[in-house]
C-alpha cells in the first residue's frame, strides 16, 4: 500500500506542473536523440555521397550541406555537444559558484566584501564576452568552451548563493537552531543547503539553457569546438552563406537550439512550482 502511494506521489509531480512535463519532454527528446547517435547515424559524418545542397528527401531527411554531407546526421551529432556543454558548464558553475557564494555568506568581513565585488564585476560582462576572453587565452576547443562558460556562469551562481545564504542565515529558525547548540557546519548542512537548493536548482536549469546558447554563439563565431566536431552553432555558421538557397540548413539547428533552451527554461519554471514546500503534498 505504501509503495503504491509513493508511486502515485511520484507521478503526481507531472500532473502538478504541465510546464515541467513539456520541458522534460523537449529535453528528453534531445537526450534520447543524443543517446541514439552514440550507436547509430543515418550516414557517416564524412560521407559526401549526397549531392550538394539537396533538399529534404527520403534519403536525406533534412537535405545535405555544401559538401553533400547529410544534415540530419550532423544535427544528431550536434546534440551530444550541446548536452555535454550544458552539463559540463552547469556543473563547473555550481561547484565554483556554490563554494564561493557560501564562503562569502559565512564569512562576512573582508572575504565577503572582496568576493562580492568580484562577482559584481564579472556579472557586468555578458557571459559570451567572458567566455570569449577565456578562450582567447586557452585556445578554442570543446573543453575550453565548457570551462569558459562554466567559469563565466559561476559568477551568477556565486552571487545568487551568497544572497540566498545570507538571507537564510538571518532567519529566525537559524537563530533558533543556534540556541539549540547547532554548529555552523550543522546550520550549513541542515538549514542553509536545503533552503538554498530549490531556488538554486531552478537557476541551474536556466544556466544550462544559457550555456547551450553561449556555446552555440561561440561556435558560430568560430570559437567553439573546432572541426570535425559538429556543434549546432557551427552548423548555423556554415549554413549562413546558403541560407536563401537551402534555408533548412539554418532552420533545423536553430529549432534544435530553441527546443533545448526552451525545454530547460520550462523545466526551471516547472521546478519553481513543484519545489515550493507549501505546495508539496497538496493535491
Amino acid at each position, binding site marked *: 500500500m505504501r509503495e503504491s502511494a509513493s508511486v502515485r506521489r511520484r507521478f503526481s509531480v507531472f500532473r502538478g506542473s504541465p510546464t515541467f512535463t513539456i520541458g522534460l519532454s523537449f529535453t528528453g527528446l534531445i537526450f534520447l536523440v543524443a543517446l541514439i547517435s552514440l550507436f547509430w547515424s543515418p550516414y557517416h559524418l564524412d560521407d559526401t555521397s549526397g549531392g550538394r545542397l539537396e533538399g529534404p528527401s527520403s534519403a536525406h531527411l533534412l537535405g545535405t550541406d555544401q559538401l553533400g554531407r547529410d544534415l540530419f546526421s550532423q544535427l544528431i551529432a550536434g546534440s551530444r555537444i550541446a548536452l555535454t556543454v550544458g552539463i559540463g558548464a552547469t556543473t563547473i558553475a555550481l561547484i565554483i559558484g556554490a563554494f564561493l557564494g557560501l564562503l562569502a555568506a559565512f564569512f*562576512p568581513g573582508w572575504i565577503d566584501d572582496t568576493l562580492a565585488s568580484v562577482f559584481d564585476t564579472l556579472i557586468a560582462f555578458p557571459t559570451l564576452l567572458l567566455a570569449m576572453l577565456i578562450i582567447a587565452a586557452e585556445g578554442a576547443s570543446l573543453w575550453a568552451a565548457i570551462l569558459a562558460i562554466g567559469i563565466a556562469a559561476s559568477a551568477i551562481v556565486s552571487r545568487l548563493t551568497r544572497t540566498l545564504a545570507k538571507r537564510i542565515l538571518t*532567519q*529566525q*529558525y537559524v*537563530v*533558533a*537552531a*543556534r*540556541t*539549540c*547548540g*547547532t*554548529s*555552523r557546519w*550543522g546550520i550549513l548542512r*541542515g*538549514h542553509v543547503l*536545503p*533552503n538554498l537548493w530549490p531556488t538554486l536548482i531552478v537557476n541551474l536549469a536556466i544556466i544550462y539553457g544559457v550555456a547551450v546558447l553561449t556555446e552555440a554563439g561561440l561556435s558560430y563565431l568560430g570559437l567553439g569546438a573546432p572541426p570535425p566536431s559538429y556543434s549546432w552553432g557551427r552548423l548555423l555558421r556554415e549554413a549562413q552563406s546558403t541560407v536563401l538557397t537551402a534555408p533548412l540548413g539554418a532552420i533545423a539547428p536553430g529549432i534544435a537550439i530553441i527546443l533545448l533552451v526552451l525545454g530547460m527554461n520550462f523545466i526551471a519554471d516547472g521546478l519553481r512550482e513543484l519545489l515550493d*514546500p*507549501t505546495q*508539496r*503534498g497538496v493535491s
Partner: protein
Amino acid sequence: MTDILRVEGLSVAVKADRSRRSLSQPSHDLLRDISFDIADGERVGLIGESGSGKSLTALAITGLLPRSLTSSGNIFFGEQEISRISDREMQRIRGKEIAVVFQEPASALDPLMKVGNQVAEPLRRHFGLRGAKLRIAVNAALEEVQLANSRRIADAYPHEISGGERQRVAIAAAIACKPRLLITDEPTTALDVTVQGEILKLIERLVSERAMSLIFITHDLAVVSQVADRVLVMRHGEFVEDLPVEKLLASPAHPYTVELLRNARLLDSALEA
C-alpha cells in the same frame, strides 16, 4: 539558593561601522550597564516596551548577538563565565543548559525540515542519540508538551500543523535536553488567546516539574504576573525596576512602572465596559 545566572554590567552597542567611522557618530547603546541575577529555580519576568532591549538581553546571554553589535560586561552561568568563551564551548551550553523559545513559532521552525528532525537535532547533538533511541526520545519530548499524536506531528512539516502545535514543538525542542535555564521570548504573543493560556500553563508545568529557572520575556503585565516570581522592568536598555511580582502590582516605585500598570488597568476596564 545559589545563582544559576549572574549578569554583571552588561552593555551592548552598535559596532562602529568601518565606513561610517569618519562621521564620528557617538556609538548608540542598546543595553546600558545592566546587572541582575537569577536563582536556581527562580522565575523572572522581563517586561518592557518594544525596543527596550528584552530580546537583546536574551541573545546576549546565549552569545548570539548579531555581528554588528558589541557587548561588554560579564555573564556567569553557574560558576562559569560565558560571555568570553569560544563559540564551540558555547555550543555545548546552548540547548543543553540554556534553551530559548521564540515568539513566532512559524518562523522559528525550518519550513523544509520535518518537525521531528528539528526536535531531534539537540538530542543528537548533546546526547549523541541515534536511530531508534533518538526516535523514542523525540516522541517522549513531543508527548511531554502534550502533543497527542506525536508520530504524526514528528513526520509533518511545520506548515502542516497549527500555530499552537508549532509552539509546542518549539518548546519540545528547547526542553528536549533538560536545560537548567529556559528563556522564553514572548512565547504567546503570536498565538490566539485560548492557545495562549494553554501554552502558558504548559510552560509553568514544565518549569515547576523540572525545577528549571525561567526568564520570561513579555510586554504583557497580566501574563507576567501569572508566571513570574520576580519582575524586571526594562526601558531604553536599562532596568528601571526589580521587584517581586506581588510588590509590582501593589506598590511600584518607578514612574514608568506606575504608568505601565495604569495603562494595563485602563485597557482592562475599557475592555470590560
